[in-house]
């Protein structure tokens, strides 16, 4: 496809601004721009055609099954978009007086109330921009907590080897040393945990269900052990979709959490954001939660409040507000029964898919899973030379988005499926049929899967070239 620059024609342009109705001010020559200023020049019709075309080369949930594990690609209700585009939400300044933005504060306040009940936390801040940012913030709260007690020795964070890459990375951003512990049967190995626990441990990061889709039934022992050494327990809530109304991270012993609102709470993922990594904590950590916080006064008004012990701010204002608007819309729509129904069916769908596929592919840890499960395709690689990526690329030919590949790292040739609750049985049955056919193709070699996809505008990409000879911007050929 052509780039917008390649469609540019000198002096073409779009919408004109209102006429300048004040005297023209010209900037002083000494500071004026003296290098070419290169943006596309394009008429509205050509702009529209360009991005309309691009949009059609982009597969979204609206186009089909999208079981990207650990990402909760559920249906994005259109009502969310309508609400998020109300002028009363889009056209307000973050530095207005609180009295002028009571509605916005109410959105935060109500969302906090509901999500505290869902997670068993006492407070939530919506400032972080996405899950990883929530982790960064949550660990910082833990760091600040320890330091506030005069405990400056706690410089380690324990993370299981199955963890998402953002976990160790966020710990490192907080200056922590990352202690990785190996898993046993996909779960936390209590012995390994014991080995690394001491009074230099700031805390443990865990997601439960974990990235294998398994619920760690030892969770109470795990968190108890960490607590007994004075460490805190951080919950990566990316997988909350599995347990809403079933159990609360708070009850599992977690002190601090983040939630991926864009995942569990149905905001369209926008090609990779914006999201919200809402960061929640128990009462004793509240002093350290990000500033400002939103409270309800005894006059029933909403107001800001600051804490002197807070870790401060992680984004300039209050985070991705319009995503929280979508979240609240979704929460109000679903209500208590709806949320439970989500989790029941997210788990049901994953197990159904797992059971239907287990005779064809090897399930990494084949037992009742939560909202996702992982296939181990190493036998396909060994026997037929077909890798996980080949199966994925072939799925594309059948108008499905592939699952997450090669994650978690502890499974070889991993394919991680998360169907979510918004897919029906018919869709799953069709997916099973297609995957079984692909398996036959892999085994028989009737189709060369290493060359898939075959039916789309683009064939497989040369990723090595991209990294070796980086071209990261368009430069006019002269």
């Amino acid at each position: 496809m052509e780039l917008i620059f390649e469609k540019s024609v000198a002096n073409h342009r779009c919408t004109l601004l209102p006429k300048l109705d004040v005297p023209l001010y010209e900037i002083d020559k000494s500071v004026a721009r003296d290098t070419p200023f290169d943006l596309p020049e394009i008429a509205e019709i050509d702009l529209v055609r360009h991005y309309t075309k691009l949009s059609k080369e982009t597969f979204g949930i609206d186009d089909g099954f999208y079981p990207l594990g650990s990402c909760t690609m559920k249906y994005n209700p259109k009502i969310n978009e309508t609400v998020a585009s109300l002028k009363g939400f889009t056209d307000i300044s973050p530095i207005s007086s609180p009295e002028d933005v009571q509605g916005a504060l109410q959105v935060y306040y109500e969302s906090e109330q509901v999500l505290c009940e869902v997670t068993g936390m006492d407070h939530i801040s919506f400032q972080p921009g996405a899950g990883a940012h929530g982790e960064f913030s949550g660990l910082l709260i833990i760091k600040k907590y320890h330091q506030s007690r005069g405990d400056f020795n706690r410089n380690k964070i324990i993370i299981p080897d199955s963890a998402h890459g953002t976990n160790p990375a966020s710990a490192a951003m907080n200056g922590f040393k990352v202690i990785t512990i190996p898993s046993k049967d996909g779960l936390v190995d209590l012995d390994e945990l014991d080995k690394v626990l001491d009074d230099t441990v700031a805390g443990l990061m865990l997601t439960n269900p974990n990235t294998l889709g398994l619920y760690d039934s030892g969770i109470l022992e795990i968190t108890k052990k960490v607590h007994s050494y004075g460490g805190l327990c951080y919950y990566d809530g990316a997988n909350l979709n599995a347990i809403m109304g079933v159990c609360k991270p708070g009850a599992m012993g977690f002190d601090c959490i983040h939630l991926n609102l864009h995942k569990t709470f149905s905001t369209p993922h926008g090609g990779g954001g914006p999201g919200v990594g809402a960061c929640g904590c128990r009462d004793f950590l509240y002093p350290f939660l990000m500033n400002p916080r939103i409270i309800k006064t005894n006059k029933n008004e909403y107001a800001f409040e600051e804490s002197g012990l807070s870790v401060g701010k992680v984004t300039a204002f209050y985070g991705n507000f319009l995503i929280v608007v979508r979240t609240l819309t979704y929460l109000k729509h679903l209500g208590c029964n709806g949320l439970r129904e989500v989790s029941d069916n997210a788990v049901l769908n994953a197990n159904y898919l797992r059971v239907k596929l287990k005779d064809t592919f090897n399930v990494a840890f084949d037992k009742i899973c939560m909202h996702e499960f992982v296939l181990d395709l190493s036998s396909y690689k060994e026997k037929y030379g077909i890798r996980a990526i080949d199966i994925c690329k072939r799925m594309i030919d059948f108008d499905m988005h592939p699952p997450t590949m090669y994650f978690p790292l502890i499974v070889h040739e991993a394919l991680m499926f998360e169907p979510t609750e918004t897919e029906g049985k018919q869709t799953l049955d069709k997916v099973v049929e297609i995957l079984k056919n692909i398996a036959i193709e892999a085994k028989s070699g009737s189709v060369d899967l290493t060359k898939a996809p075959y039916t789309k505008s683009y064939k497989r990409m040369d990723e090595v070239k991209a990294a070796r000879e980086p071209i990261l911007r368009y430069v006019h050929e002269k």
Partner: protein
Amino acid sequence: MSYVVSTKEEQAQMLKDIGVKNTEELFNDVPKSVLLKTPLNIKEGVSEFEVLKDMEKIASKNRLFKSTFRGAGSYKHLIPEVVKHLSSISGFLTSYTPYQAEISQGNLQGMFEFQSEICNLFDMDVSNSSVYDGASAVAEAMLMTLTNKKNKILFSKSINPNVQAVIKTYAFARNVELIEVLSKDGCLDIEDLTLKMSEEVSAVIIQSPNYYGLLEDIEEIVNISHELGIMVVESVNPLIAPLVKSPGSLGVDIVCGEAQPLGLDRAFGGPYVGFMATKKVNMRKLPGRIVGQTVDEEGKRAYVLTLQAREQHIRREKASSSICTNQANSALRCVIYMGAMGKQGLKEVATQCMSKSHYACNEICRIEGYSLKYSGEFFDEFTIHTPYDIDEINNRLRKLNIEGPLRLSKCSMLVCVTEATSREEIDEFISILKEVSRWS
């Protein structure tokens, strides 16, 4: 009301196929004591129509001002409708990070265009495809400059205080020593800067136009800093790019900031989008997603996520940042906005902002009791000194449904005027300032 598709009968069939009796059995791994005994204590769900009404009611509790003179990090600009229409096409909106390039070329190319345009605005070599917001962009830029030996950072007091707050947070996290450089006449005090420089300083962070609306003397700051091997990180309002010397041409090492003025609604502070661009040498230190050009098997030009060795999913604790989900759709909206405005249009927006703020400033300074606090060149914001009660001024403005300037202190206020404000609206604002002057 949960968007669950399968019927109860189908669910029953699936449970049977799985080999369990009911959904409860699926949660057998959850310890009994952890399992909820009662439903969540939240309201029952209601239909989307009722939710819409409810949310409309909440939205109506936010006041929609007919005009505004408040900026300070979040700006009201004119956004062509075509920008909103295009950026919310369902393919763009309902996809995720483009891990599967073959069916994500639209998003990938959009990001590549974003990177290219950001580079063009600032004469930089490489840009990432977005970070959370402008403040975290500055913080990430700060982290990029750190080395084993250099763990101190200078930052200008004239930076937006919210941005200062965020870099302080990041500095605390990474155990970085932050040193404040004082201001003089609203700008970074070059003397104080020189004083505070040392071998352990990795970078100086500035903002231009700064919090008070003023342009910093970037050339001078770069010269002094580079002499001592200190990098310069500049936070910038991208809208000024068409008018002023580019950071790249002035030698700035990392340019970053908030792209909200490029087509994003104020939306009570988000979603916005942070951008970061730098010189080629720092390419592999950039955090976040980067899109690169390549070819597919048939040699067709295409785009993929690249240089992933920097990122958390590969490098884990050694990654340059933990960022994963970024602000892709906001960035896409910016790129469409820049396309819609185009080379000439963006310059015109910038010129209108500058002209209108100067018109307003001149008119204000003619009124008894109001004066410009700092003398430097400014863009679309400026600081007014006045002895009158600023809260009183703002209350009077509110009564006319006008959002007044930001009160900075007892007797100074930050006035913002952009192309979105008509002369008529400016004049109405001025008339209130006059009124206050007359009555005081």
